[in-house]
């Protein structure tokens, strides 16, 4: 049982999560090509490579700043739909955190805010085959795990990861109604939404990174 994570461990986990998206370039590119224009793998690789580079250079940053910087870097370096939505949401949600350490409830609030921001910025609801279909279930599962475990950050993140992954899988059978994928109904049919998958990869890598 772990109730807090300090900024050093969080930074390592963020670096790991960035790397996970860099490593998923090909998978995400193909998923985006099925439903969109195929740039998402490259876009997030570019954005998260810049984010990782920043995190590696700035050892003194607090957790709130780390998240805000990742958000701003994504907005600057990966300004596609997904990069902008996720980057902006991270920037906004960074305020949930204190600088020195985080606990289970700030983590849950962060995830909820992330989902709220994406929903508001992207004007989407669950079930529309977007990133939100990974983030909203993740936030919900995180809240339940938090309450059940009395605030164990690992349990919270584990639940978020599992729910995001399942949520992403579920997008395979959803019709797209927003974004580029709305034009691709048939071609994308049966394949997982690229943005939802990216969120699941990020959350699960964060979980694994903090578990170490």
């Amino acid at each position: 049982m772990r109730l807090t994570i300090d900024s050093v461990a969080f930074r390592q986990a963020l670096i790991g999560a960035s790397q996970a998206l860099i490593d998923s370039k090909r998978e995400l590119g193909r998923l985006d090509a099925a439903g969109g224009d195929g740039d998402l793998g490259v876009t997030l690789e570019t954005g998260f490579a810049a984010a990782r580079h920043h995190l590696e250079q700035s050892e003194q940053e607090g957790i709130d700043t780390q998240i805000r910087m990742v958000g701003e870097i994504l907005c600057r370096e990966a300004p596609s739909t997904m990069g902008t939505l996720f980057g902006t949401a991270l920037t906004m949600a960074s305020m949930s955190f204190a600088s020195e350490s985080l606990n289970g409830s700030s983590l849950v609030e962060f995830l909820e805010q992330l989902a709220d921001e994406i929903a508001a910025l992207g004007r989407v609801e669950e079930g529309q085959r977007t990133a939100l279909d990974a983030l909203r279930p993740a936030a919900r599962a995180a809240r339940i795990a938090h309450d059940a475990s009395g605030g164990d950050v690992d349990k919270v993140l584990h639940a978020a990861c599992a729910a995001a992954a399942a949520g992403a899988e579920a997008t395979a059978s959803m019709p797209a109604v927003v974004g580029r994928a709305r034009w691709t109904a048939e071609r994308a049919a049966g394949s997982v939404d690229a943005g939802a998958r990216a969120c699941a990869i990020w959350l699960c890598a964060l979980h694994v990174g903090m578990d170490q």
Partner: protein
Amino acid sequence: MQKLLNQPGSYVDETLDGILLAHGDILRRVDDEPRAIVRRDAGTRTKVAIVTGGGSGHLPLFLGYVGEGLADGCAVGNLFASPSAQQMLAVMRAVSTGAGVLQLYGNYSGDRLNFDIAARMAGAEGIESTTALGADDVASAPPDSRVDRRGVAGIAFAYKTAGAAAEEGGSLVEVTEIAQRTLTRTRSMGVALAPCVLPTVGEPNFEVEPGFMELGMGIHGEPGVSRGRLKPADSVVDEMWEAVIGDFDDSLKESVAVLVNGLGATPSEELYIMYRRVAQRAEASGLRIVLSHVGEYATSLEMVGASISVLALDDDLERLLRAPARFWPSRFLRT
């Protein structure tokens, strides 16, 4: 990947370097924002400024339309990806002369998100702005969801009319109205015969088997309305023409401007074969083609295919389309 490039990651920046080296008399970079490019004379004469931008890989879109009588500045994204709000803001700052800024670009969610953020940031600095979105692709959504349509080559008309209106001294409201009127009266449809390869991705983002085509495909390979056997050019044009003309409301009177646009690898010979049929169809429908343009106006790297755009003219738009403009992608042997 049969491409002439160095590192895939430097494709966009090296392209821009080349463009600036070749056209430095027309274009310049904004200080500290290498992806923000404006007219050399940007900001020197009080007028409504027109900014544009979007993903790379579509030359002459978007940067090609920066020049006298057209747009004033452009934010340049990575291949098929929006530029950032910061880059757009840098362009807006550099071109703004107090008369307001029109954001004129294609209807894609990444670009919209970022242009909207840039507009808010610019507004906070006292730069007033409006928006006009290219959404001319009839294949991308039915008429009752016109606002959802993607923008393709038809935006070229709006650069010209709005650019001329701004050059004439029109107010922000007037220039915006001209841009929107042009875009509202424009319809396009494309056909793809083979995909392109993003150098950063290294593989085609869709497949069209030899002997097949996809009607209505977008310039990033977004799916179209039907995939089927490749037909003779006249039949292909007929289908596109009917979809485009059939989509118009009563704004379509007698005069039209027409653009037959190559997507990248289709030879101009074939674009003229298509134009021939377009001209025949227009005549048969009692439409008068007042201005015609056959060439590359919005591409997708080396995609094979073409699109047809029609603008239902009125007197204002016809006059503005005929105004002088400096389109650097088609300079020939003259500075």
